[in-house]
């Protein structure tokens, strides 16, 4: 069975190569069917492997089995979390391809296969990263998914914003990738190994951590946190997510960002958690501080957006912060909660982006003020958005709610409050949009014409072009069925009791700490907190719609919004500051050790 692991990468790549080769010969319909079939096949393979992943699979690419404990080959890790992420990636890819079936713009002449082929390569890169058991191999797949993501983000080259967002995305992520590679170089110099587990073992054999380990940790984490969009590496995310084509947004927000968090978890757990790695207290401090900052910034900025896709992008940042807080506890319960949360969040967020895409294609705008009341006819879509917002808030029995409640109990104390508030605020922002756009509640905003009024530090949602050639008269069924199914999946993740237990078991088998039996189930406290954040979200949204003046952008948020300047130089400067902050946060343990 373990020999099949590399197929998770090879199958989509082969599909992409065939599509690129034959794309100009076949009609668009055939190209899309082939792409969907390949994505579905890979998803099936991932699920099949997932069912056989206990005990975790290990594959040595090229058949280089270790001799005397050492191998010159590349290890692939097929454990629950890795294969789970691969399955999630594949399912979402399938959803994105199905969503783009009817909606997406005519492909460039002679390249009918280019867009589906790129999506398949994206899937391959993400699957490869999820199953990588070798640090350099992880870098290669990391870079592959980045490169494809840049191209996909800038896909609509006629759009000024799309190319600018893609460029900022590309520059910041490339720099992060090079930092990751520098870190790999440092760790290789110390250990002479590239496999994750082998590096960890060699570090432990070397003795207590020193500046080299610290630098390796900081540089590797910089790369991964750039991908995970943690503060202060997050600036690229809203720029890229707001402008990428909708199917791509579903993948970027749904899984790619979460893969950054997954990478942090995997690398810390396998490489740095031993006595030769970074002391637990330091890792906890790093992840908790950055996670809390990310959650706060994401929630505040999310609330102040009127560009709906940008709003959703910031809510992704807020949730990434929550994920980082969860894995920052370094406890099995925190990991379990985050794993479930990621699954639920992927479904909910992808569905919300899909709904935003429908608005864009139907009305040629994603501006909350301009669309005020205009989407009343789209009742079904409105229901989907409201359900998605409730899922985002963590209303039981959504998968998000179950994961959130488990993680909330793991973090404890004031961080639980942060969990409730961040999810409530982001959900409230989405509910506010739903109330205004789909129900036309509240006074009509003054700048509903779409011109002017926006201050210099606000990105409006006007001026976006629909992704279809003409505005859609009727919403194709695929575009509504896909988000509905995704929401159903997110609901099932929490409502099916066996799912949580399976996730918890897979997580415990995968961690280096060994088998720890944790139970994932609904607790009264968890349900209560979930209901609390839902009620808060509804109340906030009602207040914002009913009394817009009361919650209008306060002055204190302006400096925060000014930081998002759209300037690549600023983003790079913040990245440098971020590495320094990471180093400073992790320093105490090294000094005392």
């Amino acid at each position: 069975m373990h020999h099949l692991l590399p197929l998770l990468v090879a199958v989509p790549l082969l599909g992409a190569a065939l599509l690129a080769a034959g794309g100009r010969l076949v009609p668009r319909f055939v190209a899309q069917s082939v792409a969907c079939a390949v994505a579905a096949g890979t998803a099936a393979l991932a699920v099949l492997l997932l069912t056989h992943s206990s005990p975790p699979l290990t594959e040595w690419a090229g058949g280089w089995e270790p001799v005397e404990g050492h191998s010159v080959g590349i290890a692939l890790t097929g454990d629950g979390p890795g294969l789970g992420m691969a399955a999630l990636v594949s399912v979402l890819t399938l959803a994105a391809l199905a969503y783009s079936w009817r909606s997406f713009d005519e492909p460039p002449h002679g390249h009918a296969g280019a867009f589906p082929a790129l999506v398949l390569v994206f899937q391959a890169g993400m699957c490869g990263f999820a199953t990588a058991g070798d640090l350099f191999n992880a870098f290669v797949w990391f870079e592959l998914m980045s490169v494809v993501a840049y191209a996909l983000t800038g896909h609509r080259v006629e759009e000024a914003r799309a190319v600018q967002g893609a460029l900022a995305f590309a520059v910041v992520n490339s720099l992060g990738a090079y930092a990751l590679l520098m870190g790999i170089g440092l760790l290789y110099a110390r250990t002479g190994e590239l496999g994750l587990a082998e590096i960890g073992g060699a570090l432990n054999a070397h003795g207590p951590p020193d500046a080299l380990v610290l630098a390796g940790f900081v540089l590797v984490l910089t790369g991964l946190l750039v991908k995970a969009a943690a503060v202060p590496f997050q600036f690229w995310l809203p720029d890229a997510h707001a402008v990428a084509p909708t199917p791509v947004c579903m993948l970027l927000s749904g899984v790619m960002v979460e893969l950054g968090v997954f990478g942090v978890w995997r690398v810390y757990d396998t490489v740095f958690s031993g006595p030769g790695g970074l002391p637990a207290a330091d890792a906890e401090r790093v992840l908790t501080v950055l996670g809390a900052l990310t959650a706060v910034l994401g929630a505040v900025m999310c609330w102040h957006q009127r560009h709906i896709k940008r709003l959703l992008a910031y809510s992704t940042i807020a949730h990434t912060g929550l994920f980082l807080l969860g894995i920052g506890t370094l406890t099995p319960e925190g990991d379990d909660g985050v794993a479930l949360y990621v699954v639920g969040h992927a479904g909910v967020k992808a569905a919300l982006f899909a709904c935003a895409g429908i608005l864009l294609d139907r009305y040629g705008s994603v501006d909350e003020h301009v669309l005020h009341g205009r989407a009343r006819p789209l009742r079904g879509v409105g229901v989907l958005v409201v359900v998605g917002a409730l899922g985002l808030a963590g209303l039981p029995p959504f998968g998000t709610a179950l994961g959130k409640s488990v993680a909330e109990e793991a973090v404890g104390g004031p961080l639980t409050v942060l969990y409730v508030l961040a999810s409530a605020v982001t959900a409230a922002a989405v509910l506010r949009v739903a109330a205004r756009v789909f129900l036309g509640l509240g006074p009509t905003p003054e700048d509903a014409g779409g011109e002017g009024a926006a201050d210099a530090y606000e990105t409006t949602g006007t001026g976006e072009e629909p992704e279809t050639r003409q505005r859609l008269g009727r919403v194709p069924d695929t575009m509504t069925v896909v988000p509905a199914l995704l929401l159903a999946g997110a609901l099932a993740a929490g409502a099916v009791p066996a799912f949580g237990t399976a996730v918890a078991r897979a997580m415990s088998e995968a961690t280096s700490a060994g088998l720890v039996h944790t139970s994932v189930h609904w607790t009264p406290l968890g349900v209560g907190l979930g209901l609390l954040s839902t009620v808060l979200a509804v109340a906030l949204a009602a207040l914002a719609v009913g009394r817009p003046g009361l919650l209008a952008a306060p002055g204190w948020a302006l400096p925060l919004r000014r930081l998002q300047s759209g300037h690549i130089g600023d983003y790079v400067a913040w990245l440098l500051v971020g590495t320094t902050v990471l180093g400073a946060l992790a320093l105490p343990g090294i000094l005392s050790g």
Partner: protein
Amino acid sequence: MTTLTHVLPYLVAAWVFLAGCYGLATSRDLIHAVGCLSVCQAATYVLLLAVGYRDGATAPVFSDLAPGSRPVVDPVVQALALTDVVVGATVTALLLALVVQVAKRHGTVDPDELSELRG
């Protein structure tokens, strides 16, 4: 002198990386910024190859050398650096393609004049 040469390659790599970052952050031209990014990447090659070097050794290529007759340097880092060079070239190309489109749609390649995507 010898202690300096023992860390000099690493220091050069660190210097090149930081110089590239500085150029990237203060660049007034996106094409220049892409060039600076490739400078950053040059740092990774230098670091990787410096890590694999061994005094008095030669390349692990045995077309004109009997295996075992001379010590050889680490081939693994060379393969990594090779991959890295390819990645660098392709990323540069993709970034330049984006810069071409930015110039078309915004009429400028000065990051200071790109005023979209704020807040």
